[in-house]
């Protein structure tokens, strides 16, 4: 209803602009309650009151007052129209109770029709609001506009992951690609990091873009002074992107900690850290706990722990509940002694369900024999590391279907 009225009014106004002396009345029926008559009177400056006992001036004042309370934008449109086209428009609402729907009506009326022709000056004076929103929950709105973000996407950075970190989106938008980002990427490239890893590094650690180059250089120098070769440093950085964000003091602290806790030589520590660089980034408490769990709860000797950690550094960051679960099954159900577990530490890194299913299958077949001194010995390493099919054919001498059927009887 309101929109059709609005269209009607717009048409009225355009008609009036074309012919000066036309007085037109458009009467619109709003339901049953009231009638509004709009009069465009363009004869000279005289505004004629049509009905009622208000004068035109009064009516206009009241009108303006109402308009300003409703919307300022429409008022602007009307006033500019009036001054530019040297016409005086007089709108006289007749009924005393001004309806609320009138504001909607006028809002719609203020918008130009799509068919209306505008002059070039008008077109120039219109300001188009920029498409970039001042604030957004997502970097998506800025990607097409910002050079920085576009280049990051081309590098393979997962912006969707980054925008979930607090304040990272704002930080990225404030950076400039050429001055802030490019030097760091060049630095990483000089270090020996492969191009394909840039996306991963920035996705996990966007803060590396805000570190200063000197800091990065000193940390790399520190690592090199600890006799990490340059290829090792590059591979460490590409696998543990937070490595270069830690101060030299902290890195030194951690290297010292591992050497002291594991009681090994410097070269062994270096080897462990190079294979699992995330050890240098994470918290030290869980590592301490895992070592204690291995020592006290699982009852490994010091040299056995050293051997296990050297073979599988991941044991240090593993979930200690899972470690004990696996060990409990190996030691108490499969009756594997400590020295055999220490000999094949890969079992501690595998899945509990996998070990259990395989052991139960072998036990069902009467082949669960883990003692190397006896015939038909099955090594723990082969038990866990073989894929299903070789496991069935080589160790269990059964078919794959039998194995899967057996899993359904557990």
């Amino acid at each position: 209803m309101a929109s059709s009225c609005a269209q009607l009014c717009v048409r009225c106004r355009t008609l009036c602009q074309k012919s000066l002396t036309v007085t037109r009345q458009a009467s619109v029926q709003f339901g049953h309650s009231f009638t509004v008559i709009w009069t465009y009177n363009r004869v000279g400056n005289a505004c004629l009151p049509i009905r009622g006992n208000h004068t035109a001036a009064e009516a206009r004042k009241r009108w303006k007052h109402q308009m300003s309370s409703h919307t300022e934008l429409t008022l602007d449109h009307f006033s500019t129209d009036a001054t530019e086209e040297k016409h005086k428009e007089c709108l006289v609402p007749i009924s005393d109770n001004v309806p609320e729907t009138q504001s909607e009506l006028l809002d719609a009326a203020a918008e130009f029709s799509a068919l209306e022709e505008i002059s070039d000056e008008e077109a120039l004076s219109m300001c188009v609001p920029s498409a970039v929103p001042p604030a957004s929950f997502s970097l998506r709105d800025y990607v097409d506009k910002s050079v920085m973000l576009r280049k990051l996407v081309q590098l393979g950075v997962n912006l969707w992951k980054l925008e979930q970190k607090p304040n990272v989106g704002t930080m990225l938008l404030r950076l400039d690609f050429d001055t802030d980002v490019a030097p760091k990427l060049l630095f990483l490239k000089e270090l020996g990091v492969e191009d394909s890893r840039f996306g991963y590094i920035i996705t996990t650690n966007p803060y590396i873009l805000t570190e200063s180059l000197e800091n990065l250089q000193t940390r790399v120098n520190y690592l090199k002074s600890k006799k990490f070769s340059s290829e090792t440093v590059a591979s460490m950085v590409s696998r543990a992107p937070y490595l270069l964000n830690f101060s030299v003091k902290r890195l030194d602290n951690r290297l010292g900690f591992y050497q002291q806790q594991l009681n090994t030589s410097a070269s062994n520590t270096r080897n462990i850290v190079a294979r699992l660089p995330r050890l240098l980034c994470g918290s030290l408490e869980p590592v301490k706990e895992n070592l204690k769990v291995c020592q006290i709860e699982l009852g490994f000797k010091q040299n056995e722990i050293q051997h296990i950690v050297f073979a599988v550094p991941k044991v240090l960051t593993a979930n200690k509940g899972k470690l004990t679960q696996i060990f409990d099954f190996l030691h108490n159900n499969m009756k594997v002694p400590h020295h055999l577990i220490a000999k094949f530490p890969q079992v501690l890194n595998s899945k509990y369900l996998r070990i259990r299913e395989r052991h139960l299958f072998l036990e069902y077949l009467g082949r669960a024999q883990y003692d190397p001194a006896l015939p038909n010995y099955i090594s723990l390493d082969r038990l866990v590391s073989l894929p299903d099919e070789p496991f069935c054919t080589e160790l269990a001498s059964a078919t794959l279907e039998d194995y899967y059927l057996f899993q359904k009887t557990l």
Partner: protein
Amino acid sequence: MATPAVRMFRRLEGLFCVYKPPGVHWKLVRDSVETNLLKGLNSTPAKPLPREVRFLTSAGGDAEGQKALTVSAVSLPVLSHHPLVTGPEFCNIRVGVGHRLDAFSSGVLVLGVGHGNKVLDDLYKTRVTRDYTLEGEFGTATDNFSHTGRVVERSTYDHITLDKLDRVMAMLQGVNQKALLMHSNVDMHSQEAYEMAVRGLLGPDGKSVPILTGLRCLRFEPPNFTLEVQCLNETQKYLRKVIHEIGLELRSTAVCKGVRRTRDGPFTLHDALVRHRWAAADIMQAIQGYHSSKKKKHISQE
């Protein structure tokens, strides 16, 4: 126009069942299935990026050194639709779980994906019976009726014979039959009740106490024995308690060593997917299989 991922998701909607290993919580099973499905859905090839025409301004250096703006029209991909920017298409899928299995027990667990959840609800509104095999052992009693609990009593079991066990089970079955009649809301003296009983339709509607509709001994090697049970509205704890009570009835004690569901409504062990097959492709195959079997049943009924 639907993307490949959406099309794949539509093919994934429906019911299927997995084999839950013992010692794993059903929530873990559900979550890992959801993760695998998401992985499969989001690894489908993305739609090629839409291209838009942009007017790039470049300062064309004239020979006279005058600054002139040359505008060139270039068609560029719209990066805001890039998968690295929009993120994965699916972040979570509704995966519903049918009748639960507690961590101790194993067996067929029905899962519904997408609008399969509604079908799942409807399935359990009808009267579904379930088959279980129960492993029992005479001689001990524990606080939670399973062999992992704290032992509270030990007893001898030499006097138990298969005959005695059968007698106790027959008694149990009779009691449950009576309960079944009591919970079916029909007058037992009516023609309607007779007709329903003839067709085997007597039974509780909706919630009721657990009812064993069938009980059978599969294996009897004292102290170990295996029972097969068909039941309605049960919990696994109730089944373990049944084992415990059988032990008490036989003037001995018994614990439950395993609860394994072999059938849940129309889903049997044969359809169940074992752990290594919980990937999107296998699940889709299982769901298509379920749909086609339902269609076949529908046609044969007509």
